[in-house]
């Protein structure tokens, strides 16, 4: 992961036991990369009394136990981390190894009902969109609702719009795109993202002690396969292809 360049952070109280951290910068890409870098550092140097954090696209909500710490301490710690803490990727053994995933995806009309409209929007042929997705290298930026891997790195000519009307019941394993991001639907449910394909793998398995095999910073590539190939894979729980240090 690249280290984002950012100087100051904004820390605002949010209710009686949380603060919201944002990065005041005119460039959206820097705000987004910066908050990911800040989150990694903050969790690596987690101050006493901090219960959890919630990642937004351009923000980090820090929830704390007001009986163990105070807003002033959390704010001070956040500023210290932003200014001084080394990135967890800088030091050895600070962070677990980055994992790499090659995820087979079926890109046919059934699996990707929004592919045609995405292609039209981008002024490309659907086959070229599939190729662009396959050639993109994605980095998992955060785990969204129900541990869905939210990824950066879609290389297409322009950002992809969300659906005007959200779909109400998208199948698990659906590969979805919006902006320059991709996400995989872990459970049946609604989404405003554009559904372009589907993987036969189980992304989240709640019967396992750790329901997912991926984390933020991991690398994902999508490998187009036919429906028959997907069936022949007998794909189960998604596992990394390799673990690079």
């Amino acid at each position, binding site marked *: 992961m690249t280290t984002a360049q950012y100087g100051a952070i904004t820390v*605002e*109280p*949010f*209710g*009686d*036991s*949380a603060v*919201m951290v944002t990065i005041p910068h005119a460039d959206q890409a820097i705000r987004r990369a910066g908050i990911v870098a800040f*989150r990694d550092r903050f*969790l690596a140097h987690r101050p006493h009394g901090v*219960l*959890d*954090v*919630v*990642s*937004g*696209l*351009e*923000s*980090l*909500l820090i*929830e704390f136990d*007001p*009986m163990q710490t105070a*807003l002033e301490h959390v704010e001070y710690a956040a500023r210290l981390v932003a200014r001084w803490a080394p990135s967890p990727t800088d030091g050895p053994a600070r962070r677990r190894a980055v994992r790499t995933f090659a995820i087979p995806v079926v890109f046919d009309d059934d699996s990707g009902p929004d592919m045609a409209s995405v292609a039209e929007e981008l002024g490309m042929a659907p086959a070229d969109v599939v190729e662009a997705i396959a050639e993109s290298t994605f980095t998992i930026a*955060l*785990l*969204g*609702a*129900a*541990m*869905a891997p939210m990824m950066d790195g879609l290389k297409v000519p322009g950002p992809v719009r969300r659906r005007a009307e959200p779909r109400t019941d998208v199948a698990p394993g659906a590969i979805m795109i919006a902006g320059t991001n991709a996400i995989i639907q*872990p*459970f049946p*449910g609604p989404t405003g993202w554009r559904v372009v394909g589907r993987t036969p793998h189980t992304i*989240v398995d*709640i019967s396992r002690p750790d*329901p*997912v095999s991926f*984390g933020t910073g991991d690398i994902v590539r999508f490998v187009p396969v036919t429906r028959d190939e997907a069936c022949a894979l007998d794909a189960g729980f998604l596992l990394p292809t390799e673990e690079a240090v």
Partner: protein
Amino acid sequence: MKTVALDITSTGWVTTFQDLGRRDTERRGVPTGGAADQHSAAVANLLVGNPRGAALIENLGGELAFVPDADVLLAVTGAPARVTVAGSPADGWSPLVVPAGHEVRVRGDMDQGTRTYLAVNGTPRTKTLLGSAAPDARMGFGQAVTRGSRVLLETEFRGFRRRLFEPPLFRLPVPVPRFDAGPWDIDVVAGHGVQAIAGIREVIEEATYVVTPRSNHVGLRLDGPVLHPDTDTEIVSHGVPIGALQIPHADELIVLGRYRSLTAGYPIVGVASRASLPLLGQAGPGRRLRFRWIDREASLRRFARREAEVRALGYAAAEAFGALGFMEPLRHMN
């Protein structure tokens, strides 16, 4: 330790295993979840000598009933409820020794609050997801307790020799919340939405809101007056604390609950005080709510008082149970 079974003879509209929620999972996209009324859940556990975060049963609506196959120590807390043991009335918010084979019935009064909690001394055998028994519907982790099923639990409770009509064995300092008939007052710490929407502070302060039936564990949806921001500035999805008051595009006010996810760009006018969250967890359709603005320091003072009461109960219960010879509560007090 021995294994005790509760034969479930009746369940409410929604009856599930529950606890105080998952820890440290929100950064991985899984809401903390857990008991809607955390105060009642924690107190139920302390009253039976369990750690406050132990797994217990949450019941919404209808009647929960069961028959233990051995003597058990249990407590019922939450909204005002009619509790009977083999047909005789028994107290809520108090430890109860229920002999083997006696049916316990718990019927909450939905007009006074939605949820009751049943804690039994010991550890129920239940599945966990990311370290917690709390259900997560979105991830297909239902945790329903069903009629006709048996809830098994490991307990070291062996019963007390007590005769009928003896004075109560326990007299503990129990912080029982008020469940008023009139509107409930909820303290709210203002958020930046208050600046973005001129006049909203006064509108919210003066109105009474009514909880609608479209409410669920993700949020309470309230009927009542709201204002919208003038501008259409897009707010990027961000995390929100439990208890956040958001104004969606429609004319309603939403109070987010423990299963909330990122907000989809709606203005947040404030966040309910931590001390008010348990009451919000008890609000059902038709409940009238009034919001009072409170500053952060006052909000935390109220929470600290509540917390001190719960701790005092924890120590008193641990001492009482320790004197009776079971050590478990003393072990987890520290």
